[in-house]
């Protein structure tokens, strides 16, 4: 049971109604965010850019999003992003690995290094070493690492939001 009102389109604030589809549907996350329409003006374009394909390909991004959501035990984001990751080209075995269902060793070196860095970024940012950054930069440019760092930040924001307010996963 959500701890926030999940607003239907006709009960949502007027400026927030644009986030609903023509049939009035919207994800539970969006329906909860509609309570604060002012923030949507900047939040949704920001999230859209962060989660869309940018300097980093979508498969890598979704792999990281699922991993971060797994570390934060976010039921909502895992339910939303596991299928999305598969659609974006993440293999079932890779997905199982970042969800701790099988060892991370099944990942290719690039993905394994990125996930190792992402784990540190989430769990122990002060513990990130120059060596780890150098290793991850063997696979990514500086700007791509920045993009992944912001992606992790945005995912943590949503993980905490959805978990703290018990936003129900979309059926």
């Amino acid at each position, binding site marked *: 049971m959500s701890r926030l009102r999940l*607003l239907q389109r*006709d*009960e*949502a*604030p*007027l*400026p927030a109604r644009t986030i609903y589809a023509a049939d009035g549907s919207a994800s539970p996350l969006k329906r909860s965010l509609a309570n604060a*329409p002012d923030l949507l003006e900047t939040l949704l374009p920001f999230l859209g850019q962060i989660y869309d394909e940018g300097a980093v390909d979508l498969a890598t991004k979704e792999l990281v999003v699922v991993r971060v959501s797994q570390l934060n035990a976010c039921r909502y984001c895992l339910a939303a992003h596991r299928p999305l990751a598969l659609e974006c080209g993440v293999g079932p075995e890779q997905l199982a690995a970042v969800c701790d269902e099988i060892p991370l060793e099944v990942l290719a070196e690039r993905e394994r290094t990125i996930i190792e860095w992402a784990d540190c970024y989430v769990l122990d940012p002060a513990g990130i070493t120059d060596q780890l950054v150098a290793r991850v930069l063997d696979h990514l440019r500086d700007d791509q690492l920045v993009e992944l760092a912001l992606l992790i930040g945005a995912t943590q924001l949503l993980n905490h939001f959805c978990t703290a307010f018990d936003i129900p996963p979309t059926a």
Partner: protein
Amino acid sequence: MSARDTLATAVEEGRCGDRLWLYATYHCNLSCGYCLTESMPGIANRRTLSSGMLIRLAREARELGFEAIGITGGELFMLPDAAETLAEIASLLPTVALTNATLFTDRLLERLAPLADLDIALQISLDSDSPDRNDALRGPENFARVERAIPALLERGIRVRIATTVEDQTEAELARLCALHRSWGISDDDHLVRGVVRRGRAELAGMGITPGPTDILPELTITADGAFLHPFGPTVRHGVTDLDLLVSRQVLPLERAAERFLRIVSDQPVGTDVARNIR
């Protein structure tokens, strides 16, 4: 274009009113059956705007080009500093303050004396010339208190308007009510008669009319919950504020809320509120 210019254009085109409404508090000593905001003595969330906040909003409204202030609730005079706040606001812009006029002790009337020199009207609710009929809608002893308060205010030179909310009153009953306010020296121009709006507690009770999109003139309305499209927006059902007419959560600076309000107003059809007199 600045918010001030946009507001002036929107007012000129008839897209919105030039009055800023402020919900001072949702706390009330009455519990009327048609109340939009479920206001009552024991209300859990009073949603009160402080005196400082009300005055700041009025000051910023003047800077933005609003021509008038409306203050409503709840009952404004549940707030201990209401008289002084009203005087301050009315010194900034012409003001109408809605009240049930049941809390006007001699001491409070004394504190209201400065209002006589300001451009302010107290708009007092009175629904029938019959004490029984009026009190059935508005609570015990309401008529008697209003009947005492109105002459006392008028004697002190404070302008009074009467607002009648119509549900099932007959023409004859309204005619008697008009005769009563005229006997106090209140002209027909200062008597407002409007229907119950089917929102808030009235909706739960199946009372009133559902206004169409052009029945109510948009007027920026500020409450502790945010900024709304008009004063019939921030209604409450089962303790929860309706958000369907919310235009902004942010109310300070007022210019930010006004910009969001004007963005919505510019997309809406030009309306008229004369048909149903819902104000």
